[in-house]
């Protein structure tokens, strides 16, 4: 399990590197090498580490450990074929982690990042719609049951494409350099993670790598079913490239517009879930 965890961290960071490189090439820039995010993580792990004088020390450090802990747990939940509701819970708890990162330092930049994280809570609702739609068809929220259902009825992406779209939007809302990345916008320096340097930032990078891996793997398993490992990795790379196209071609929205659009999408998805519930 530990080798798989390490693999997931490094592959997740590689995915983020591919994402960044693709954005750069679409925008006709050379961009950093695809392994840049891995280098970042390793570099921060060996840099001088400190805690700001104004920070809430225990929370400042604790939240990094919680961030790694929840996504490690999420990885093992997916591998064990447990309830997708746990993944949903962990995904939503990541918002609390962002909130904790931002507020614990006492920095105004981090604070604004944390506040933006709270106000963009609407971005999570499409995930609930996705789960509701899956539940209506598969009559279970266990990943193992969802995989079994797809072996009989075919991939869910063809049965409930809008639910797949909803989850795709959820993943998009968590991607860096995207239209909804208001929590780490440049006018806030780095937003909620501004004050976390050195080994704390390395921990955050590990969390980001794991998060990307888990979310993309969950997407592939839930909507395409059990696929051979090589195909799983290839599908994750292809999805991250499509996300990079969206991020490269859409400017970052203002916080107000970001929340408005996310709320609009959430509203449409709720109507879709109600329709499925009515007809299913």
């Amino acid at each position, binding site marked *: 399990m530990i080798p798989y965890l390490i693999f997931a961290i490094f592959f997740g960071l590689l995915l983020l590197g591919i994402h960044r490189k693709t954005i750069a090439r679409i925008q006709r820039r050379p961009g950093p090498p695809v392994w840049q995010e891995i280098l970042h993580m390793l570099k921060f792990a060996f840099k001088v580490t400190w805690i700001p004088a104004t*920070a809430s020390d225990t929370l400042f450090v604790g939240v990094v450990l919680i961030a790694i802990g929840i996504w490690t747990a999420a990885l093992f939940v997916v591998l064990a074929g*447990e309830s997708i*509701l*746990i993944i949903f819970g962990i995904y939503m708890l990541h918002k*609390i982690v962002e*909130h904790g990162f931002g507020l614990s330092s*006492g920095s105004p930049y981090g604070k604004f990042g944390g506040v933006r994280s*709270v106000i963009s809570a609407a971005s999570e609702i499409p995930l609930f719609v996705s789960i509701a739609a899956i539940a209506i068809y598969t*009559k279970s*929220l266990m990943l193992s049951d969802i995989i079994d259902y797809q072996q009989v009825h075919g991939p869910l992406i063809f049965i409930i494409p809008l639910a797949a779209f909803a989850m795709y939007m959820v993943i998009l809302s968590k991607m860096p350099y995207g239209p909804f990345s208001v929590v780490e916008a440049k006018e806030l320096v780095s937003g909620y993670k501004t004050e976390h340097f050195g080994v704390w930032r390395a921990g955050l990078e590990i969390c980001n790598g794991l998060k990307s891996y888990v979310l993309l793997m969950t997407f592939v398993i839930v909507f395409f079913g059990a696929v051979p490992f090589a195909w799983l990795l290839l599908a994750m790379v292809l999805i991250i490239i499509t996300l990079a196209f969206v991020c490269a071609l859409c400017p970052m929205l203002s916080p107000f517009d970001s929340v408005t659009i996310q709320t609009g999408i959430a509203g449409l998805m709720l109507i879709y879930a109600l329709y499925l519930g009515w007809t299913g």
Partner: protein
Amino acid sequence: MSSVGGATLAHLPFGDIVIYITPFTLTLFLLALVFTILVIASRPERQLDITFGADRIITKETGLTEMRFRRFMAIACGLASMGAMLTGDVFDFALFTSLVGITNVGIVAAVKSRHVQNAAFQYGLVAMAGTVPLFGAAAMVAATTGTLSMLELAKEATSVVPFAVKAFLVLGVMGEGMAPFYAAKAEMFRAPGAPYVIMCSLSSLLIFLRVIEVVLTV
């Protein structure tokens, strides 16, 4: 639905308070526990604020009395959240959820600032209004099914709890769990105390997650 939060790992019939543990409820319980320990162990940060009209940055401090009260409220909130995560009784869930609402009002209202107290007052009104559908839903579950036990209700092949009752329960939880939006409006901008504000957001999120499991299970 047979498997919402995973297989039941254990259940403790503790008087009326039936505790049941699934991978889902256990995960949420552990998270509430970890954050409660963080609240106990953490001191509030000192927020930096920019002074408008001058080239100056000030550091905000939290007074000892205020810190003690907010920490007490945050710990109570953590305990209420833990109870709401593990309970297998609809009435107890409503009770723990309303306690989460009350403690969240306490966390916000302890700050001696006009803006923050306005936010706490408004949130208090919403939370108080939320108790009506919350406890009303619990009462209607008992009236329509004859039991409040989630384990008993989960045994039914198709849900015997009317859709409107489930909607009431969700509405009640929404009323109690609105704290982060009021806190984000005023408190975070004007008052330090990250460990306690986080407990507001965490407890609200946890009760939202649990109510999803409850309405899908019963």
